[in-house]
């Protein structure tokens, strides 16, 4: 139940080749996150899997069955949309019951499943309300409720948290992760936010211009980015990418070092630089430091590291955490 295989799937809109060709294996019970900058084709890929768009080539296999030509409803997948797409004229109860009603299930069975789903999602008190009377987070939960009652083979989430405020987003992130632990159903989650990707995923698929740049667990991507794009995309703040003399000394075209892997000191180190901006977050301090011959370097220090604009500091990159890339941007 819930394995999905894409075999050289491609999608063309008119002249534009949105997805040249993608092969991907999603295993049963996995939480897979598609992440990438906007316009990278991640939503299109999700819609191809859902069946809301026709593939231009290749095939989609769900649970060993070729689903390329199946209509969306027959694929056994459920989707949570970015706008939630709740039916505004129906109560929460009818919204959640809608897919069951369409499946022709009998009334008692529907009622039982709806109240089960409502209990899991803390919606029991809101069942008779209309979507417009709910807060953003509650609407989100109704949308998820509508998806889980069908007991689908896999859930598809299309940037479900992007309409929520920051605090609620963190909450919902946890709730979705917990839901995945409970249900153990395959989930495919699309986001442009690498923090969501890192925190929730079993497996991250990094997409760029319709191509898969790298597939791996969050820590794999963090430790061993396969190329410059992944190196720059995963991790916050971004990895420092340094070219020139320092890179050549390390036998590479470009060298990457994460802000958290740079040692800081006030009196000695490999590089000497001037602090241009210091961002004090309390637990951490992020500094943008202008280093001659190297460029602007971002470095992380403890929250109590009291520097200000214009201070001189010394930096020492941790040699064991260097990422080296060749002239084609691939990791060495």
């Amino acid at each position, binding site marked *: 139940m819930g394995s999905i295989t894409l075999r050289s799937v491609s999608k063309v809109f008119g002249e534009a080749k949105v997805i040249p060709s993608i092969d991907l294996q999603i295993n049963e019970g996995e939480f897979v996150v598609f992440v990438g900058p906007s316009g990278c084709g991640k939503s299109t890929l999700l819609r191809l899997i*859902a069946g*809301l768009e026709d593939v231009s080539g290749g095939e989609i296999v769900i649970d060993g069955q070729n689903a390329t030509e199946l*209509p*969306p*409803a027959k694929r056994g*997948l*459920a*989707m949570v*949309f*970015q*706008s939630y*797409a*709740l*039916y*505004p*004229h*129906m109560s929460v109860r009818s919204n959640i019951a*809608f*897919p069951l009603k*369409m*499946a022709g299930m009998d009334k008692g069975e529907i009622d039982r499943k709806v109240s089960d789903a409502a209990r899991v999602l803390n919606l029991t008190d809101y069942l008779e309300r209309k979507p417009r009377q709910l807060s953003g987070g509650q609407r989100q939960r109704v949308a998820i409720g*509508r998806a889980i009652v*069908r007991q689908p083979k896999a859930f598809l989430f299309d940037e479900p948290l992007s309409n929520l405020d920051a605090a609620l987003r963190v909450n919902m992130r946890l709730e979705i992760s917990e839901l995945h632990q409970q249900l153990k159903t395959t989930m495919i989650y699309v986001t442009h936010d690498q923090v969501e990707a890192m925190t929730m995923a079993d497996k991250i698929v990094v997409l760029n211009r319709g191509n898969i740049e790298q597939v791996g667990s969050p820590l794999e991507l963090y430790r061993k980015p396969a190329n410059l794009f992944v190196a720059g995309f995963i991790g916050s703040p971004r990895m420092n990418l340094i070219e020139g003399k320092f890179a050549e000394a390390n036998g590479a075209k470009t060298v990457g070092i994460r802000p958290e892997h740079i040692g800081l000191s006030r009196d000695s180190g490999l590089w000497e630089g001037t602090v241009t901006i210091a961002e004090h977050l309390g637990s951490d301090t992020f500094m943008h430091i202008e280093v001659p011959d190297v460029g602007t370097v971002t470095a992380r220090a403890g929250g109590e590291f009291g520097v200000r604009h214009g201070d001189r500091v010394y930096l020492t990159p941790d040699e064991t955490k260097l990422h080296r890339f060749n002239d084609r941007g691939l990791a060495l």
Partner: protein
Amino acid sequence: MATTHTRSAARLMMAPSVILLFAWMIVPLGMTIYFSLLRYNLLMPGTEEFTGLLNYEFFLTDPAFFDALKNTLLLVGGVLAISVIGGILMALLLDQPMFGQGIVRILVIAPFFIMPTVAALVWKNMFMNPVNGLFAWLFRLLGAEPLDWLAVAPLTSVVIIVAWQWLPFATLILLTALQSLDEEQKEAAEMDGAGPISKFIYITLPHMARAITVVVLIETIFLLSVFAEILVTTNGGPGTQSTNITYLVYTQALLQFDVGGASAGGIVAVVLANIVAIFLIRMIGKNLEA
């Protein structure tokens, strides 16, 4: 912005238009009520005198009044049914992507711009004429006896003509409603396993409820006072078969020169329109609430 000052300023600014509109309504209404209480016939000038409710008694007990009442309701109901159901179907069709969509939409709206007399005459002479009409030709083509529409089915003919004029309006309003339906909602319904018919019944139709209400309310206002189409086609006949209240008032005032009786009829029409309005608001007005 809602300080006491701005609010009273706003009231002051609105006052002229409110007063003008109120006068525009109350003066004719007052005069009509006044005339309806007089014995006032243009053929006997100078003999006006107060008669109490006698005009109302005559108007309400006139057998033509009940025919007219029935015809008015049939006319309104018939045109509403055709234009709303037809409008929904047309809107669904026009919402489909197709070549030359913009031009087709403008063409569909066209009948709304044609004045009622012209539209009615075109229908009367080019379609429903038993000798030269297109329908007669069609009937003969099929080997049937041509129908003299305006004589055999006068009210139906008027309903068809008026419905033709109002169909574009309904189509236009319903089409815009249809286009504002969220694409993701349709997709969600599709994922939920709704077929085209379920999608229409559970998603599209409820979404259009407000637009349908607007169409019904606006059309009712105008359909209660259909006049030109009847005047140029059937003249209310044969007998009173296609006379509605508006036309009956016209015959009282300008064919029988009975201003008093016509005024009483006008007041009755106003009361009837209000009854219809109350019923409509009760039935479908809740759709207009946000």
